[in-house]
Every structure is written in C-alpha cells, then in structure tokens.
C-alpha cells in the first residue's frame, strides 16, 4: 500500500533522513520505533507532504505522491495525526471533527459524513459529551482522542500516528493503543510512531527501528521484541515478553 524508497529529507543543510526505505501492507499495523531526534516525525511529515523529500520516492497505491503538497495527499487517503495533537484549540470539538472531513464535503453526501461523525462519537464517547466545548480546554488524553478522531474523519485508508501516547498517563496509553488495534480491525492500515516501543510492539504486526536518520533494523513485532539491541536500548532492562 505504501512504499517509501530511499528517501532523504533535509532541514536546510542538515540531513534528517538518510535514504530511508520502508513499506506498509494493506491491513497492517507497522510501527517505527527509535529515540528522540532519530527522524521518526520527519519521516511521517515527508510521507504526508508537510516536508519535501530531496531524494527518493514515496508511492501510495501505485501513485507517486513525493511531490504532492499535504493538502492534496490527504485527499488520496493518507491521514496524518500530527505530534503534540495540534487540535484547533479555540474551536469546538465538533468543529474540529468536521474539519477532519473538510475535503469530503461537496464530494460525498452529508448523511455519510454525519454517520462517520456518529461512529467517532461511539469510538470516543467522551468527545460526544464535550461536543460543544473548545478543544483547547480538553485534557491531554481527550485532545489525543480528538486528534485521532479528526484524522479518521477524512476516511483514510492509511493512518499515520505520531506519538499518540506522548505525555499521557499509562492507563490512557493502554486505551489509545487498544483503539489503534480496533482501528486496524475495522480495516484501517496504520503506521505508528512511538517512543514507547513496548506499547507499540504489543499491537504491531511489523516494525522498523530508526537511528539517526537510517533504518537499522526491521522485522516482525515478535522478532523485534526478541532482538537484544531493541531489548536493551528501547524496552528497558529486565524486560520479559509475556504472551
């Protein structure tokens, strides 16, 4: 579904991605783990068109999207839930969700979009309760749910999630991770970025490890969990996989 081939992205003179390649297949949860500053967010921003790759290619469903701007790529079915949530703080929860479906208005029937809104409210009942409240007044966890809900309102086939657990209490992390699994079961393909490798690998099918702009390891989630490098550097000492 998604093929990233030898992508290099720069911030001015600084090279943040050094020929990164990865692929995501239909129906998978693929996770990208790595330390702060390794290039995880840069890679997602390059895929979704916020940043332009200087070299390499991004192919989505056989179509080259490397040169397309972000506002076009979302129309093709890639939705990016950005880091630090970035909800529209002064606008209501409902307006945030409606804007998530911005490009669908005029193309699809209003009733279809309204039904999707109800689905989001079923997935995140708290958002229904806070429907009219300004998004900036929600707690961190609620804002994350709103950001995910907003991303889903565009009806993506591929969802890019950037650190959904960042700054959340452990219980909320589990909740978010559970929801990511549920999304996959409903047919959405997910590329998940996490510093919390343990949580991410628990639900992922496959994973990649990125270090200083390069993919250094790839494999199934089970392989990565069993890998000594991953264990010592990303899962913490004394980690045991409990199946």
């Amino acid at each position, binding site marked *: 579904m998604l093929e990233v081939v030898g992508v290099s992205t720069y911030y001015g003179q600084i090279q943040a991605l050094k020929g990164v390649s990865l692929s995501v297949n239909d129906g998978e949860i693929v996770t990208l783990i790595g330390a702060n500053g390794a290039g995880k967010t840069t890679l997602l921003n390059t895929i*979704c*068109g*916020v940043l332009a790759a200087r070299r390499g290619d991004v192919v989505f469903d056989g179509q080259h999207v490397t040169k397309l*701007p*972000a*506002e*076009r790529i*979302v*129309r093709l079915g890639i*939705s*990016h839930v*950005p880091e*630090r*949530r*970035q*909800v*529209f*703080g*002064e*606008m209501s929860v409902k*307006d945030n969700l*409606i*804007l*998530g479906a*911005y*490009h669908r*208005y005029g193309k699809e029937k209003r009733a279809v979009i309204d039904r999707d809104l109800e689905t989001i409210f079923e997935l995140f009942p708290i958002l229904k309760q806070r429907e009219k409240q*300004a998004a*900036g*007044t*929600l*707690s*961190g*966890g*609620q*804002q994350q749910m709103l950001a995910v809900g*907003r*991303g889903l309102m*565009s009806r993506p086939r591929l969802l890019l999630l950037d650190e959904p657990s*960042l*700054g*959340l209490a452990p219980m909320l992390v589990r909740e978010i991770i559970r929801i990511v699994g549920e999304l996959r079961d409903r047919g959405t393909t997910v590329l998940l970025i996490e510093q919390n490798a343990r949580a991410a690998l628990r639900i992922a099918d496959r994973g990649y490890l990125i270090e200083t702009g390069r993919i250094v390891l790839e494999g199934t989630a089970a392989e990565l969990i069993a890998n000594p490098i991953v264990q010592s550097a990303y899962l913490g000492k004394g980690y045991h996989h409990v199946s």
Partner: protein
Amino acid sequence: MEFYQQVLQYLVTGVTLGSIYAIIALGFITIYNVTGIVNFAQGEFVMLGALIAISLYKNQVPIVVAFVGSVMVTTLIGAALQRIAIRPAKGASTLTLIIITIGASITIRGLGLITWGPDPYSLPAFSGDQPIAFGGAAIIPQSFWVFGATIVVLGGLYAFFEWTLLGKAVRACAINVSAARLMGISPSSMALFSFALSAGLGAIGGVVMAPMTLATYDMGSMLALKGFVAAIVGGFTSTPGAVVGGFLIGILESMGAGLISSGYKDAIAFVVLFLVLFLKPNGLFGGRDTGRGGL
C-alpha cells in the same frame, strides 16, 4: 445643556467615524490572521470601493446596484492582488510580503490617479440629507447607513466564521496552518479568500462613507492608518477587538477634535496607539491563548 449637546454631537460623529475604522480594521485582521501579512493596501480597497461606486452612479446605474457592483469589483481586485503580487512571492519572508503590499498600495493609488484624476468626487446620500434630531444632536441619515453597514458586516462575519465550512477552514488556517493542511485545507486558497474578503469589507466601508466625505484617489492612506491603529488597539487578531478599537479611535478623535482642537484630529489616533503600546502592548484584546492540555 449646551455642552451636553455638543458632546452628544461629537459622540454621534465619533460612532460614525468609528464604524468606518472598525470595518477597515476587520479587513486588516482578516488577512493578518490567515497569512501573517499586514496588508498596507487595505486603504486602497476603501478608495476603490468609493470611486468605483461613484463612477457607476455617474453612469446612471442605480445606487444600490452601484453599491453591490463596486463591492464585487473591489473583491475581485483584492483576489487579483493576491494572485498577481503575493502568490508569486511564495516562500518569501513575511516582511517581504508586507513590503509588496506597500508597493501594491502605491501602484493602486497611482492607477487611481490615472483613472479618476486628482479631483474629489461625491456620492449623494442613500436616503436624503435631512438631519434627524436626537436628544439635541443632529444625525445625518447616512450615519445610520454607516453604522448599519458595520452591524451587518459583523453579523455576516460571525455567521460565516461560526456556521460555514469555509469559515471554519479559514479559522483553522489562522490557528494552525500545518494542521489545517493535514485536513486538506489549502493555505493558498485561504489566503486568496482572505484578500478577497478584506477587499470586499474595505469597499463596503468606502461606499457607505462616500456620501459623507469627498472621495479622492489618495483617501486610502489616512483611513488605512486609522484602521491599522484600531486593529492594533484591539490586539490585531481579535474581531471584537478590532471593532472596539475602531469605535474607540473614532470617538476619541471626534471628541478631541471638538473639545480640544480640530488641528489635533489626526494626531489623536496615534497618541492612543502610543498609550496602548506602552501600557498594554498586546492590545486590549490580544494575548489570548488556550492551553494544550497536558503539554
């Protein structure tokens, strides 16, 4: 009684002036919120609105049609300005873009001079010149048009930004451009739209004020400065702020001109600007920030 009547008269004049400044200030913040550009050609939109309406009226077009026609033409000119002068400079710094608007302002004023010459023009009042007595003050009917236009504009903007998808998209773009792009909202389209909207607002101000003042090709500069001051006083991002700022400047200017000396009329707005910048640098309505919740 005499003094009270005088003050009431100045207040009426001030509210009328303030309505115009408020409309111009709204034009400034509409573009600024979406693009970060301070559009120094804002006053030229007012001039175009007034002079195009006058030209249409002189060619036997009914006043209502001249009003609507002028606002539409000016709106298109605003859109064209964004496409011709701003968009090609994509990627340039905001300062560069602001300087471009200064250039655009001078260019439009020059074209205005070529088209209409240096002579002042006037438009007849929309509903007669017979002043209406109000508690000892005389109100010319056009004042109601000016004030009414401001109310309609405010109501229209509120409805647009709160209730329409396009309005919400414009706001989203103003709050967070990169997140807005992830929703499929094109910043370039929103910038185009904000220029068109601002031009339309300026033109409305120009047409309704045309019967009260003489319209000339260079009328825009001072009006733009006053509207700019009003916008800054209001915090430069807030709609209510721009309106309050507009009325504040209008009323103080009118009071100052009447009670102190009419020679200071134009200086008063700038004294207010200095006071606001010294005492409350974010403006009366500025500096509002909503939390990110947990981060």
